[in-house]
């Protein structure tokens, strides 16, 4: 963890988002406290707090004063649109670019993806 | 050490240092006492005992006190400043240390002299000390008490001298110790003048004694007090903006 060069708080925020998407964090469920996060990942608690603040601002988490931080009921809906957008931007855009550089026709890629999709089923 | 309040810690520290220094050197005191008991006894087999052995032990104690004052200041100053003590607090604690140490050592000196007096009287010996060419007996009990009453002040003057040299040696790494040259002859000379005698130590340093011979004890004691105060002020001045030495890897 923490090695792709983006700020640590963003990596933590991304990880919490991923946990919400894959179901390990349920909507309405309680999230670990800032200090628990800091101790677990050995990071400055202010860094963990920054991640939480960002998620609260995005409406993914909400804060209950004195109780803790919870996953918003509509967190998954909010995130899925975001995930789709990022998937295209981070995964597909470079793929298209590299394919063009390597001279691989787009139709080959589509065929490959279809067989992979078939294999997964 | 239980944590004293911030305002009192400088006093607690000084008293604590005196206590631990006395505790640390207690066997030296015991050894001195044993020697002072045994040596005259051996001498008595061959000659008349005329000199107070304890007086020589007390003289050693003075030099020892100078080393304690200087050595402790030199090693403890950086340690305590690093542990969050101000230099001013250190100066106060060192003063308390010096006073308590000198009083305690003075009391030991005083008690020892009377114990020796009883010991010598019992065996018919004469408790005296060397004045130039002749040996002068210390005299009546009142004389002995008067003689011993100056001991704490004397110890304190040596302690102050040691402290100045100790802190100066910390401050000026290669040259600080040179303060020995002006300071020791003054302290030692005043000491010699007080007793008008030739105690242990290089005799030439007693040059001040010659000029002070004619004076009574009270003015000389006042001069010692004055010198001690001046030394304490000097130590504090050297201390107040002393930088911590940088560490070498």
């Amino acid at each position, binding site marked *: 963890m923490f090695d792709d060069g983006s700020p640590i708080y963003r990596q933590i925020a991304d990880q919490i988002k991923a946990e919400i998407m894959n179901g390990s964090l349920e909507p309405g469920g309680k999230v670990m406290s800032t200090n628990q996060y800091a101790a677990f990942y050995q990071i400055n608690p202010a860094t963990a707090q920054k991640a939480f603040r960002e998620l609260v601002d995005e409406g993914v988490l909400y804060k209950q004063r004195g109780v803790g931080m919870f996953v918003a009921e509509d967190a998954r809906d909010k995130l899925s649109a975001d995930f789709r957008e990022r998937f295209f931007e981070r995964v597909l855009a470079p793929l298209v670019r590299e394919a063009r550089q390597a001279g691989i026709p787009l139709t080959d890629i589509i065929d490959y993806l279809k067989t992979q999709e078939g294999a997964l089923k | 050490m*239980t944590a004293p309040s911030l305002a009192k810690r400088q006093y607690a520290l000084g008293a604590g240092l005196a206590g631990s220094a006395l505790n640390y050197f207690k066997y030296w005191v015991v050894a001195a006492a044993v020697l002072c008991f045994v040596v005259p006894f051996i001498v008595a087999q061959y000659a008349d005992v005329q000199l107070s052995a304890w007086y020589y032990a007390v003289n050693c104690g003075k030099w020892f006190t100078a080393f304690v004052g200087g050595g402790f200041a030199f090693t403890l100053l950086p340690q305590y400043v690093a542990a969050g003590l101000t230099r001013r607090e250190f100066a106060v604690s060192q003063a308390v240390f010096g006073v308590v140490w000198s009083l305690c050592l003075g009391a030991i000196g005083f008690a020892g002299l009377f114990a020796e007096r009883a010991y010598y009287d019992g065996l018919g010996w004469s408790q005296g000390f060397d004045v130039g060419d002749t040996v002068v007996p210390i005299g009546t009990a009142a004389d002995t008490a008067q003689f011993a009453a100056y001991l704490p002040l004397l110890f304190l003057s040596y302690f102050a001298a040691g402290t100045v040299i100790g802190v100066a040696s910390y401050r000026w790494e290669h040259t600080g110790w040179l303060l020995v040259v002006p300071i020791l002859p003054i302290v030692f000379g005043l000491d010699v003048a007080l007793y008008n005698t030739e105690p242990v130590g290089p005799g030439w340093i007693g040059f001040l004694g010659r000029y002070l011979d004619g004076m009574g004890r009270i003015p000389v004691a006042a001069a010692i007090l004055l010198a001690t105060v001046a030394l304490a002020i000097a130590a504090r001045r050297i201390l107040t903006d002393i930088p911590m030495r940088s560490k070498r890897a």
Partner: protein
Amino acid sequence: MSFSVTLRDVSLNYGAEAALSGIDLDLEAGKVYGLLGRNGAGKTSLLSLIAAFRKPTSGEILVGGEPVWENAPIVSRVALIREGGDFDDTETVKDTIESGGIRPSFDAEYAYKLADRFEVPVKKRVSALSRGKRSVLAAICGLAARAELTMFDEVHLGMDAPTRDAFYKELLAEYMERPHTLVLSTHLIDEVANYLEEVVIVDRGRVLRHADIETFQGMGATLTGPADAVDGLGLDALAEQRLGGTKSITVAAALDADVRSRAAAAGIEIGPVGLQDLFIHLTDPNRNGA
């Protein structure tokens, strides 16, 4: 109540030689700072001034809003732990720990607990300790001081990797339990980077950069690709390397979206720069200014 630190136009000379000149610095209460700098850059001098180990030649130093020099209520709650510690070597470890008690806040019980955990023999004399154990003892005394401003100056030297790791863990736990201002001066930047909130880089007696850690982490990038394409971006390179027709440059500025897309289109790979590398480039003596 953690201490803030303020330096206003502070200079320090050793004789004719200037160790620090014109330092202005604000450290906020309760944050963890990393102090980075090459050997002789002035890190230790800076920390010595903040801890009132020495007096500045000129300028003003406030800790907790008050002048720190000879201020007992302040310095009794400021701890600077220097490499190897400031100990009387002839004392035992136990006596050394006890003498920490001149700080009213000192927690001897905690110190003994740590000594036990880090296997520092309490009965041995300090002079008989290995370099590593001595560093650990210094660190223990620093933690147990429970100060409002604690500064560790290269205290990790001599500790092996597992010990350093355990020490940082303890430091973080202590910090979370009792928030206070912390300054870590070190060369092993990547080891402590995750603990830091802000970073101060000192170079040649001056503060070169002071920013929060994210700024530093987002600051640098390496761009690797065809030499012409890399040059074509017109970026101000901190460092560059060439291998045949391929060129790699390091920049110390956040890349905007426009540069990123142009780089991507030209087949240039963009990679992150670790804090350690960024620091090396920023303080390269062959660079003029920064």
